C-alpha cells in the first residue's frame, strides 16, 4: 500500500466525508418530502430524528460536514494560491483543529437535550 502522509489522508477523509454527507442528504430529501402528507405524518417523521440514537448518529454527520467544509477551503487555497502547497500540512492541522472545535460546539446542542438540559431553543417551552 502506498504510505502517503497528511495529503493522502486528507484526500481520503474528504472523499469518505463527502459520500457520507451525500447519503444523509438523500435520506433528508425524502424525510422533508413527508411535508406533502400533512402535519401528522411529517411530525412523526421529525420525531424520529429527535430520538437519542439518531442524535448520536447525527454527530457523525456533523463531524464529516465540518471536516469536508474546512478541508474544501484548504483545497481551494492550494488550487488558487501558488504558495499554499508549501503549507498544506499546517493547513491540514488547522482544518483538524477547527473541525474538532466546531464539532464540540454544535455537538453539545445536539446531544444535550437527551439529558434534559434546557438550552432555551424549544419555543413552546417544552
Amino acid at each position, binding site marked *: 500500500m502506498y504510505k502517503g502522509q497528511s495529503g493522502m489522508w486528507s484526500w481520503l477523509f474528504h*472523499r469518505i466525508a*463527502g*459520500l457520507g*454527507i*451525500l447519503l444523509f*442528504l*438523500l435520506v433528508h*430529501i*425524502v424525510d*422533508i*418530502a413527508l*411535508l*406533502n402528507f*400533512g*402535519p*401528522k405524518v*411529517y*411530525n412523526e417523521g*421529525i*420525531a424520529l*430524528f*429527535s*430520538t*437519542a440514537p439518531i*442524535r448520536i448518529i447525527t454527530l457523525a454527520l*456533523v463531524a464529516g*460536514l465540518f471536516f469536508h*467544509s474546512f478541508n*474544501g*477551503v484548504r*483545497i*481551494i487555497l*492550494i*488550487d*488558487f494560491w*501558488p504558495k499554499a*502547497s508549501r503549507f498544506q500540512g499546517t493547513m491540514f492541522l488547522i482544518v483538524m483543529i477547527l473541525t474538532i472545535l466546531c464539532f464540540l460546539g*454544535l455537538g453539545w*446542542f*445536539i446531544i444535550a*437535550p*437527551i439529558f434534559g438540559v434546557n*438550552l432555551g*431553543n*424549544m*419555543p*413552546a*417551552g*417544552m
Partner: protein
Amino acid sequence: MRISSGYGARPAGGGFETFSWYFFRVSGIALIFLAIIHLFLNHVATDVSCTSFQLVEIRYANPFWRLYDWLLLILGLLHGMNGLRIVVDDYVHARGWRLSLQSLLAIVTLVFLLLGTITLITFHTVPNPGLICPTTHF
C-alpha cells in the same frame, strides 16, 4: 491534459470536466454558508424536535426561506452527485458497469431534484397544524 501555468494542476481543456472542477469549488464556497446557517437554524436556534410542520409554516410564509432551501438543495445535490460520479469514474472500469452506474446516478439526481423542488413549491398551510414543539420521546 493541458495544464494551466502558475497554479495547481487542473483540467484545462475547457470541456465538462473543467466546468465540473470550477463547479465544485464555487458551489462548495456557497454551500459552506448555506449549510452552516441551515445547521444553526435547525439545531441551535431551534432544537430538532421543534422543526415541526408549524415551524415550517412560519418559515415558509416568507418565500425567502423556500428559495434558500431550494438553493441548498440544488447546489448540495449537484455538488454531491458530481462527487459520486467522480468516485464511480475512479473505481469502476468495466464498460457495462460504467454506463449503468453513471446513468443510474443521473436518474437519481433528477428524481431527488424533482422531489425536493415539488415539496418546496407546493407546501402550503393547513388548518390545525399542531404544536410548534410536539412531544418527543427520547
